[in-house]
């Protein structure tokens, strides 16, 4: 399977190229062709995974393990260097600890050399690679137009675009590495690359806030990351060195794998921004929007849930799994609640990302086949819909110069197309015929039967969470379509590349919704079959019929629009009898002319950001400590 090597190395090559290219049009060509090639290759990988069983592949190079180790040392060295420079001594300390642990691991691994294939690919890898390749590629192309405008608007910020695009592609490369690695030492190496890249991308604006938040991201990911070498030590000290292979470890069953899997899952929790680690993701919003889209929809955070999903079969019915699921559940609930109190569009997206990841983590944590089925669907739908949302918000931001949802009032008249796409994205996040809701439905099905009574606990959490989710999404939709004074339609300033990417993503959202049964039959179910041997029919046929009826209804609806708009006569708004002197202006008390101003509710007396995050960080820390305790006790036994 040279394709795997290609997917890892090709983006690396592009990254190298981009880092040196200064000319903008050349960069453009390289980025577009690189993205297209990566996208095609990833789809080919997907196609392969449909047709074949898991493939294993050993890299035909000797002593490549040493190279990986050297790479690890270089990354750590760089981090130590920048953290010392920025006086972030905690970061330095953790990196040093990590390095020491890693040396020990390497020593053990060398003395006890395992013969396992370094790379492998199965249906899950196929799905992930398609997400990374296609959506990641699209985001990179989108970034071309976006970053030009970004620098035009912020002349004070250093323009290091060659490096920027280099890192973006490096990131893709590392993501492919993570999903194709079978050797966990490799996986860790790519893991650390993503951590480093995210740090670099977040601090891109180079403001004090960006730097601070970049270090926060680095710190949290390193804390999580430090758990992985410990897991390696456990593996290498307790058993056969073959278990350093991902596939081998998962197949070994909970008896041997539970403790390392638990430790690696903690790293996954940090990476996927679960409470108590969530604040790095919110802070990362200072970065340019394509970065947010890349980190929070299809890559970075997905690496976290990917690794947990990989180990999900190990967690089935185990206490550690339940605790992980609870962390996911609490995160889902708390992050959704906080999203209500936010008016910054990117923050809403950030919190809803955290919430959705929480749901995925919860599904993985229960570890049943149904749970995993829901988790994978969630990963797919979330990646598409969220990147669509991030990118369209980025576009809007450049047009109206605000990220505030309140400023998007009546956007439907100003930018009807973009608004339509935001609406599709939002609908995709919570409305009935769209994917996220199918997944939510599936996860309810999954939880209700699993590990009583904890499954029911998760069901209750979802029940509350879905009401909350509906609130903040619906009010945003409402804001977009609430028309005070019709504005001049003006979409011409939007770069073509941005627009076309948005079109592709919205089309994808709809296509995937239509196509989800196909995805389920050809990808998810076969994969689950290999993991769980027996798989029940997860979505019965009648439900698919229903889904289609609903989709049909939604599609047919726009046609009735024309008929209804014509017949009505326009009348002014009801203002208790006070006439509108001009549109939206009335004469109020003291003879003052007032403009009608409407804003959404933020309910911050109930859904107070500080209070909720303080409480849930507390719960999160408690649960993590509990997990680690169980591991220590379990390890000691």
């Amino acid at each position: 399977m040279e394709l795997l090597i290609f997917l890892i190395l090709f983006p690396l090559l592009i990254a190298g190229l981009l880092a040196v290219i200064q000319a903008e049009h050349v960069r453009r060509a390289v980025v577009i062709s690189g993205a297209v090639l990566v996208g095609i290759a990833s789809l080919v990988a997907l196609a392969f995974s449909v047709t074949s069983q898991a493939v294993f592949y050993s890299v035909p190079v000797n002593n490549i393990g040493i190279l990986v180790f050297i790479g690890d040392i270089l990354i750590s060295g760089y981090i130590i260097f920048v953290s010392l420079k920025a006086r972030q001594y905690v970061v330095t300390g953790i990196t040093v600890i990590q390095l020491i642990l890693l040396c020990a691991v390497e020593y053990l691994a060398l003395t006890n050399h395992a013969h396992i294939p370094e790379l492998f690919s199965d249906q899950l890898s196929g799905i992930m690679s398609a997400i990374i390749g296609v959506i990641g590629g699209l985001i990179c192309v989108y970034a071309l137009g976006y970053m030009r405008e970004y620098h035009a608007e912020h002349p004070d910020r250093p323009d290091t675009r060659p490096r920027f695009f280099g890192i973006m592609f490096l990131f893709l490369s590392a993501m492919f590495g993570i999903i194709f690695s079978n050797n966990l030492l490799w996986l860790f190496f790519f893991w650390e690359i993503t951590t480093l890249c995210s740090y670099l991308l977040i601090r891109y604006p180079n403001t004090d806030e960006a730097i601070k938040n970049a270090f926060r991201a680095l710190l949290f990911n390193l804390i999580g990351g430090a758990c992985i070498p410990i897991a390696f030590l456990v593996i290498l000290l307790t058993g056969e060195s073959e278990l350093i292979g991902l596939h081998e470890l998962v197949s070994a069953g909970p008896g041997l794998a539970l403790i390392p899997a638990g430790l690696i899952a903690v790293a996954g929790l940090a990476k996927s921004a679960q409470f108590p680690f969530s604040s790095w993701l919110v802070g990362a919003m200072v970065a340019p929007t394509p970065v947010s889209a890349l980190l929070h929809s299809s890559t970075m955070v997905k690496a976290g849930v990917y690794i947990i999903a990989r180990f999900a079969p190990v967690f089935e019915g185990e206490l550690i799994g339940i605790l992980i699921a609870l962390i996911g559940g609490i995160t889902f609930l708390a992050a959704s609640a906080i999203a209500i109190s936010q008016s910054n569009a990117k923050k809403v997206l950030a919190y809803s990302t955290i919430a959705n990841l929480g749901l995925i983590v919860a599904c993985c944590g229960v570890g049943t086949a149904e749970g995993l089925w829901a988790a994978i669907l969630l990963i797919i739908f979330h990646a598409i819909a969220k990147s669509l949302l991030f990118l369209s918000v980025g576009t809007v931001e450049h047009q109206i110069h605000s990220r505030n949802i309140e400023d998007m009032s009546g956007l439907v008249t100003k930018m009807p197309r973009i608004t339509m796409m935001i609406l599709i994205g939002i609908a995709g996040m919570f409305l009935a015929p769209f994917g996220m809701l199918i997944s939510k439905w599936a996860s309810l099905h999954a939880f209700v039967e699993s590990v009583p009574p904890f499954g029911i606990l998760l069901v209750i959490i979802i029940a509350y969470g879905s009401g909350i989710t509906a609130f903040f999404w619906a009010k945003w939709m409402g804001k977009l379509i609430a028309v005070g004074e019709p504005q001049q339609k003006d979409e011409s300033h939007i770069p073509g590349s941005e627009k076309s990417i948005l079109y592709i993503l919205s089309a994808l959202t709809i296509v995937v919704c239509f196509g989800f049964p196909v995805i389920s039959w050809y990808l998810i179910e076969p994969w689950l079959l290999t993991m769980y041997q027996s798989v029940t029919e997860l979505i019965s046929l009648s439900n698919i019929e229903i889904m289609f009826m609903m989709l049909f209804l939604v599609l047919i609806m726009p046609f009735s629009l024309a008929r209804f708009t014509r017949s009505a006569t326009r009348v002014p708004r009801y203002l208790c009898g006070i006439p509108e002197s001009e549109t939206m202006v009335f004469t109020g008390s003291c003879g003052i002319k007032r403009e009608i101003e409407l804003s959404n509710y933020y309910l911050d007396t109930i859904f107070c950001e500080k209070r909720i995050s303080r409480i849930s960080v507390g719960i999160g820390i408690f649960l993590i400590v509990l997990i680690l305790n169980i591991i220590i006790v379990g390890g000691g036994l």
Partner: protein
Amino acid sequence: MNPFLAAALFIILAPVVGVLITGLDRILTARMQGRVGPPVLQPWYDIRKLFQKKQVAVWGAQSFFIFCYLIFIIFTGALFFAGGDILLVIFAFTLGHVFLVLGAYVSYSPYAHIGAERELIQLMAVEPMIIIVAIGLYQVNDSFLVGDMINHPGLPILLLPGVFLGFIYILTFKLRKSPFDLATSHHAHQELVKGSTTEFSGFTLGMIELAHIYELVVMLGFIWLFFGNNLFLSAVAIVVIMVLEILVDNCTSRVRWQDAITSAWFVTLVAGAGNIFALSIM
């Protein structure tokens, strides 16, 4: 019964049943207030009247969203009576309400806007309990299909007393009855004028009224599920619950949204969640 036949029957019969129930509700309310009240068919007259009026709107798009609302409420009911997956019924129901809310938002009028926000608060308040109802019924029936639930030979309510209680509590929200008629109410004297429906008139308002009637029937259908295949008992229960709702409507003032949502969530947690949690342990 053939699911398509059942759905068709619902679409045709629900307005009849709904109008009668609403009409009787209005008479009973009037009698409780020491008045005579309107004729039984008054809701029907109202809807027909609204369809006769000339259409006015702030923006034409309003009607579109309300049309979607009506369609999805009807769809929800059809799905329900066809015996579909109850979770999907609930999601379609939510979808319908989101359309209502969007319709209210469109006009950018202060009262409709606040009504829409309150409508969303109500949605948020009842959503957990409705999902818990579905889960509780699943625990009893081992199936999410309404079609299976109505064939339950026993009385699910015996296992789900808390869930039933919680459901009745949030039914007040769904029927837009005092003390939880936050977003819009049947009579005019409220701080929001007509809340979310302020900017609708004529045909559009007629569609809303019709949708409310369908909604009522669906909500009463949920009560049925608590009594399995015992038709007689469920009919009695529906009557008793309706009378109880009307009584509560007449014995309370409207509460603030904070009290509404916290009390609904509290009841959901204690009665609803407690009940299904206990069931899962057993």
